[in-house]
Structure formats: C-alpha cells, structure tokens
C-alpha cells in the first residue's frame, strides 16, 4: 500500500527522528509513505478569525498538491494534522473562502511551473487528511500491527500524551472523544504496553508560548510531566514535535525548580512502535532526546 | 383615492383572537381587510389565495400562531412553506409577491395586528391596484363559479398562463379594475 505523506517543516528538520521512525515502521507494516513531490509549510497555526483567507492558503496549497497524488494524505505532526484538516474542512464548508483560496492558488507566481499542473482544477476538499494513528487503526488495522510485533512491551509503563491539536475542536477534528479519548491507549495495548492513564493527558503543554513566555509554557509542561510521573509511567509518548520539545527538553528547568524531580523520557509513538516491530537502532534515534530513554528501555530488555 | 381590497385569512386560535383583542382595546386600523376565519393557517390552500387575487383582492394577509404555538402542532410551518413557494409563483405570474403576507400574530398581540394591518394596507397602496390583465368579465361574488370539487381557474400553473382561465371555462376579470 502506497499513501501520500506530508512530513511538514519540523519533521524535515528538528524532528527527523519522528519522520525516520515513522517511515521505517510504515515500511515494516507494508505501507509506503510517499512524500509529496512538493510541499510547503502548513502555517503551523490555524487562524481562528473569520476573515482569514491568506492564512489558509498554505495548507490548501499543500492539499491541492496532495490531490494529485491520491485521495488520502497522512501526517504525523499534530499541528500539521490540525491545520490541514481544518483548512480542508473550510474548503468543504465555506464556498466563499474556497473560491477565494482557489483564485489565489491560480495567481501564485512562485514556482509557477511546478504548480501549474496542480492548479488547473479547483481544489474542492477531495483529499482526506488522516493521522498516522488513524492510518494504523483504520487502514492497516491494529490486529495486523499486533501480528507484526516482535517485542512485546509488556513491562513498559507508557503514558500516552494527546495534547490539544489532535482532539480539539471535536466537531472539526472528529478524531476521538476529547474528554476520554482512547485511540492512543488502544494503539499502546496493541504493542502490549502497560498503559498508564494520567489525568493530564489532554492538557496543554504550553505550545508556542515556549518561544515567547517560557515560564508559562514550562508550568504547563510540568503539570503534564508530573502527572505522568506520579502515575508511575516509565515513558511518555507523544505525536507532536512541539509537545516533545516542551515536555522533554524543558525538564532541565523543571528539575531546577522542583526538588527531587525525577526525569522521564518523552519519545514519539513511532519510535515505540519501531522498538516493538524490532526495527534496528539506526532508525530509532534517541540522540536528540534530553532525557535519554535508553536506560529504561535497556532495563526492560527492549534494546 | 385608491383603497385596496384585502382578504385576511386568520387562524381562530391566535390571529383572529388577536384581532378581537385589538377591538376590545379600541385600537384603530384601516378598514380595508375582511377576515375569513379558519381553524388553522395550515387550512389555507394556495388556491384560496389565488382565488382572492382573481376575485379582485389587491392583497392577501395570512395570520397564524407563532412558530411552536400552533394549536395543531405544526400547521403554521406548513403554511410558511406553502407561502414561500406561493410567493415565487406569484412573482412568476406577474403578481408582486409583497401582495401576499404571512404574519405570526398571537392572541395577545392586538397591537401587532394593528401595526401589520396598517403597514400592509400602506404597502399594497403603494403597489397600486392589482391588474391581472385577464380578459373577459369580472367574476363577481357568487357569479364566479368555484365548485368545491374542482379547483378554480388559477389552479397552480406556475407559468401563469393567461389561457388557464379560458381552458377551465371560468370567467375572467376585466383588464383593469376601477380604482375606487
């Protein structure tokens, strides 16, 4: 099975470990993630004001590119998923904006040659944006995933962290119940993990505020991290590079503020999947992690 | 000065009672409308409205209970849908859709009834007398046959063909009615 794939800027740069592990896992599961031949930044935030058209051009342009590759588009990063899915919905439900966006797309002069073939027809929202987790559940099937598991992660206590962008707003994302989601838990159970339910799994990590108001974001992240630690998790898994950054790299600051702070590794769910599928170390790279997950993984004989 | 002739179809539970209230409160409004009382505005067949125009009405006012207050659950919603279509049809026939008005007037809204009546009379006045451009003589009152079994001449032809009157053998009205 081949499926168009949109990595997004961060996975192309700072979160290569996310991208590489995901591609390798997909391959092992018989899915080839075909990166879009051209793509741009998704814009990183979805505009919440009603008069925004310019702000959705980036995601719509990417969707238009994707429409030439297939009827689905897989993403990994929570922000990309959020922005692409909502922009797609805007095109489907708001004819006025759809028309304007398409006009802009046609007028796009940069990279005209490349784009031209894509903009002859209007983009009408025909692509279905799906998250890698949804792909695993609905296209590959958790059962098929379970069959490919080489190493059961049964002693590993894993806390699934959803964050914000996958779940909210419920009506637009249609991803899972925003209050008691389960897709992540079911995924982890498929891998044989000991799933740790922690109450802050859907609370905010501070998001982009880490850039402008670091203390604020760290307070948010600490709330999440402490909650998982308190529930006895060995590791937190996430689907978002920004969450990973806030929860992992900022533990240095958290440790400074809280006496006796016990650090906890934060890894991408695809890395955990890779371990379970028995993928070799080259594709499962933890060198960018602030809190090294390898000791705890080694302790559980998972490396 | 031209005085428009108006037929008012009022449901007996709300608008008719609202008109009663206007009376007991001695509110004043122009005497152009005559009320035909029906159980429910949902009883009004579009044909009744067309017939009224054919018989020389310059305006037709339908009064029903407010949405949600219908004595028969949802008769007024049925009316609302019918009136929407009927207005489109009227305009196809060359009759200004403003000559037909649907209003929700409750039994407590004597004031609203007065306001609507006055306003509607003014509006119809500004539109002028309705000229249907039919040929033949005016079918006046009992003279025009409108047997119960068959619907009258203007029967729902959205195209508004002038020939419909002839086809069913009905008398039609003079081209222009004298302004009173």
């Amino acid at each position, binding site marked *: 099975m081949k499926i168009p794939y949109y990595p997004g800027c*961060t996975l192309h740069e700072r979160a290569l470990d996310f991208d590489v592990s995901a591609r390798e896992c997909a391959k092992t599961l018989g899915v080839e993630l075909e990166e879009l031949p051209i793509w741009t930044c998704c*814009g990183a935030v979805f505009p*919440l004001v009603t008069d925004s058209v310019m702000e959705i051009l980036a995601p719509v342009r990417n969707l238009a590119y994707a429409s030439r590759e297939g009827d689905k588009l897989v993403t990994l990063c929570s922000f990309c998923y959020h922005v692409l899915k909502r922009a797609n919905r805007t095109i489907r439900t708001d004819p006025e904006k759809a028309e304007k966006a398409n006009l802009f797309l046609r007028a796009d002069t940069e990279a005209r040659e490349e784009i031209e073939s894509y903009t002859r027809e209007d983009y009408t929202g025909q692509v279905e944006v799906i998250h890698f987790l949804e792909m695993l559940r609905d296209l590959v099937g958790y059962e098929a995933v379970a069959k490919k598991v080489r190493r059961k992660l049964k002693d590993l206590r894993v806390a699934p962290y959803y964050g914000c962008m996958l*779940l909210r707003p419920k009506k637009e994302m249609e991803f899972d119940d925003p209050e008691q989601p389960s897709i992540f838990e079911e995924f982890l159970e498929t891998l044989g993990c000991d799933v740790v339910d922690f109450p802050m799994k859907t609370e905010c990590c501070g998001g982009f505020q880490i*850039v402008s108001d670091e203390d*604020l974001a760290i*307070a948010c992240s600490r*709330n999440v991290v402490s909650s998982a630690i308190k529930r006895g998790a060995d590791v937190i898994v996430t689907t978002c590079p920004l969450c990973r950054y806030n929860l992992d790299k900022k533990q240095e600051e958290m440790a400074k503020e809280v006496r006796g702070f016990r650090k906890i590794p934060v890894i991408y769910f695809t890395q955990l999947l890779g371990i379970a599928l028995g993928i070799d170390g080259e594709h499962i790279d933890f060198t960018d992690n602030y809190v090294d997950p390898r000791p705890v993984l080694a302790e559980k004989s998972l490396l | 000065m031209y005085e428009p002739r108006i037929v008012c179809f009022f449901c007996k539970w709300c608008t008719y009672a609202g008109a009663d209230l206007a009376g007991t409160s001695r509110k004043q409004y122009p005497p152009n409308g005559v009320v035909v009382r029906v159980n429910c505005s949902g009883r009004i067949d579009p044909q009744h409205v067309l017939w009224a125009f054919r018989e020389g009405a310059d305006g037709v006012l339908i009064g029903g209970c407010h949405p949600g207050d219908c004595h028969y659950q949802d008769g007024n919603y049925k009316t609302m849908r019918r009136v929407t279509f009927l207005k489109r049809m009227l305009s196809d026939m060359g009759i200004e859709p403003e000559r037909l008005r649907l209003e929700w007037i409750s039994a407590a809204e004597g004031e609203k009834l007065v306001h609507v009546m006055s306003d509607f009379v003014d509006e119809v006045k500004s539109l002028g007398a309705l000229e249907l451009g039919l040929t033949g003589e005016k079918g006046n009152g009992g003279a025009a046959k409108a047997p119960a079994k068959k619907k009258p001449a203007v029967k729902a032809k959205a195209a508004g063909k002038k020939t419909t009157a002839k086809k069913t053998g009905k008398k039609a009205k003079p081209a222009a009615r004298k302004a009173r």
Partner: protein
Amino acid sequence: MRLRITSEHIKGDIIKRVEDLSGQSLLECYQCGKCSAGCPVVNEMDVIPSEVIRLLQLGQADEALDSKTIWICASCLQCASKCPKGVEFSSICDALRQIVLRKRLSTPRMDADEVSAIMVSDAPQMGVVGALRKLNG
C-alpha cells in the same frame, strides 16, 4: 471606579467587530465560567476568560483589548471544547489579538530579533512560526 455602561458601548462598533471576527455571539455566553475553570494558563491571566467575555457583553472593549490575557492564551482550545453554549473563547481571543495587531503593526508583541538564539536553533520550527503568527499577526 464605577463601570459606566451605556447602550452605545454595548452596541459599539468594536464589539460588533469582535463578534464578526471571532464568529462568536457574545450574548450566548451565560457566564458559567467553565472556560476559565479549565484554562491551563488562567493563573497568569489578569482577567479570566469568562470575565473577558463579560467585559465585552458590558461593552467594555478597551479593558478586554488591554488585558494580558489575550497574549497569554496558547490556543489550546480547551475553553472552546468545554463551553456548554458552544462559545469559543479561543476565537474571541484571536479576534481581540487581531484587532490590536492590525492597529499597531509597527509595534509587534514579540520582537523576532529578541527570540533567543538557542530557541531559534533548538526549538521546533512550528513553535517559532506559531508564536510569530499568533503574537505578531
């Protein structure tokens, strides 16, 4: 100080602008405060989310626009997700930010040059882009 409430303020252009821009109907909010109760950054706010909406309901747009609150919101959408009336404070917040930003383009909230080098070299691109777009418009 006594809050002066006038119909002029309540129906003022700026209130209408907030409603238009956010797509939210301010009077739908019945002030239950669930948005504030669930907000992860409410501790840092000078005016809590439900109070921002209340200020707008009372026609006090300036107070809302001057609040720190609108720059603290991280758009996590917890408020919008919890609201029993379907009022999205996150959108109202974005609208208020936009009103300020579009007026004062010359003085952005965040000076891009002042974002620390470490942050630029270390943080995920999405974070930097997000912050600039949210705070500088």
